[in-house]
């Protein structure tokens, strides 16, 4: 049965797009058909990690939401861009980075139901095993919707009081929406912190599983969103941690 995975965080800059790209690529590399949808319509960006330039994407998720085209026509095969050759396949539905398109979304909003219907059409038409949803930070109707349809919700937080508080709120909402499986991931942990103690403390606080703990990494910063980290540095500890999280998503 296809599985929908939402990657979310209460605050911005936690690494949602980076996690989405790495986890989706890791899963696809194991021979699965994987889709990624950038639902961060106000501030899209994940297409950069998949080396998909805006010039190559005449139409985006925006155009589907405006009724201009079916969602399948804005799904771009990015398998080759991330070196997937072993049977798996990776598709990206990007959001538009044109100022006009973003303004239109901000001015007029969009019908959240269309988003939901689009996810399903995509899963069926492309025969996806996994659909990863990269979200806009914070809580909004669109976020609620992504959470509600997810089989797995991965919440990313940093060791920071604002993140702790926001994650607690988000986890409450997710439980209210009866999310089937919630996982936490802690990102950008500075080197002097004891990773195991941190993981234990967060699990006790939120009563949810911490799927992975990621140290603050200069290599990730250096890559500067030009490619998927786990493809460039497959043996790096961070790539191993992504594989660990991906495994838990697949087993959920």
């Amino acid at each position, binding site marked *: *049965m*296809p*599985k*929908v995975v939402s990657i979310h965080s209460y605050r911005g800059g936690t690494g949602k797009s980076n996690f989405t790209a790495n986890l989706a690529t890791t899963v696809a590399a194991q021979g699965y058909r994987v889709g990624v949808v950038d639902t961060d319509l106000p501030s899209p960006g994940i297409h950069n990690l998949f080396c998909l330039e805006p010039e190559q994407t005449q139409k985006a998720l925006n155009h589907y939401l405006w009724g201009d085209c079916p969602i399948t026509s804005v799904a771009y095969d990015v398998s080759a861009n991330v070196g997937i050759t072993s049977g798996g396949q990776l598709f990206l539905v990007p959001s538009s980075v044109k100022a006009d398109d973003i303004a239109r979304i901000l001015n007029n909003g969009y019908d*959240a*139901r269309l988003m*939901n*219907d689009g996810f*399903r059409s995509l*899963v069926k038409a492309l025969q996806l095993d996994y659909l990863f949803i990269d979200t806009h930070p914070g809580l909004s*109707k669109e976020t*609620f*919707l992504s959470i*509600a*349809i997810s*089989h797995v919700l991965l919440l990313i937080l940093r060791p920071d009081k604002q993140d702790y508080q926001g994650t607690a709120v988000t986890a409450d*909402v997710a439980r*209210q*929406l*009866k999310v089937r499986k919630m996982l936490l991931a802690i990102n950008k942990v500075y080197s002097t912190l004891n990773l195991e103690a941190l993981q234990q403390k967060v699990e006790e606080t939120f009563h949810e599983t911490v799927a992975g703990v990621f140290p603050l990494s200069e290599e990730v910063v250096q890559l500067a969103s030009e490619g998927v980290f786990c493809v460039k540095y497959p043996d790096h500890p961070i790539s191993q941690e992504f594989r660990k999280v991906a495994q838990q998503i697949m087993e959920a």
Partner: protein
Amino acid sequence: MSNTTGSGMGDLQSLTNSITAVTSPFRLYLSDLLQKYQPLDEGAIADYIPELALALPEWFGICAVTTVGQIFEVGHCKQLFTIQSISKAFIFGLALEDHGREYVNSKVSVEPTGEAFNSIVLDEATNRPYNPMVNAGAIATADLIKGNNGTERLKRVLDMFKRYTGREHDINVPVFLSERATGFRNRAMAYLMRNFGMVGDNIDETLDLYFQQCSIMVNAHDLAMLAATLANGGINPVTQERAIQEQYVQDVVSVMLTCGMYDASGEWTYRVGMPAKSGVGGGITALVPGQLGIGTFSPLLDAKGNSLRGLKVCEDLSRDFGLHIFNAATGDRNLEEWIAGSNGTDDW
């Protein structure tokens, strides 16, 4: 529990309910039905007046409202169209409230007829039109609506529809004027009934009211609310307002079951088994008493004047969920489970 605003239901609960309605497996099922029947492009758009011919063949909406007020919408559920014959069932209810069962029955029978909706046939023994759903019977029924003048009578009709749907309704004036200018056959029927004393002196005012009631603008959501209100014993499940006296709900619903789908009513009752009423604007309102109201809209009509896609949608719903009114077997799918969502119904 009627409290959906204020302190009764928390805002978080209210928001999650609205999200759950979007993601409910039942809505996904309706979304699949929409996709399944959207390609069906047989049939024809009513064009006996030019205004109706303006409808687009691709328009297609399905809405369902439960008797606890959950709303599921897919497709063109906001698109307005004229209610046409669907109004007849509800006007019948208003006439019953105005005069009681005995008097109304003396003016219009409740016998199904195999004749088309526009036939000029009256019961030979009593001179009554056959039922309130054929044009003659609907005109005789409209004649019973109380009010000091045409404006007041129309206002009472519009107020009644507002109680059912929870929102204000307008008349489509071009449709009304066209229907009035070309409705010679209906005018002839009215005069024939006048001859037998089945309608009063006020023929022109009554015919205007009849043409106006057919020109009321509704959408698929309104049709689902109309049906859901009847399914809920006459109380609008969202606003909790009573739209029709409890005692007359059975009158309206039983005439819908026996006469609601023009001269295809027998086949409909056998195959679908939901009390329903259709209109040549492309609407169908159908109900599962105690459970659900359904509104469909697609202007492509079959030869009998029923919406083709709407018929298919109701057939599928009835079969898949075992909603036939006389069904004794369990359906393949359980409606409550599909609305609430559970692992067994999740077909991602």
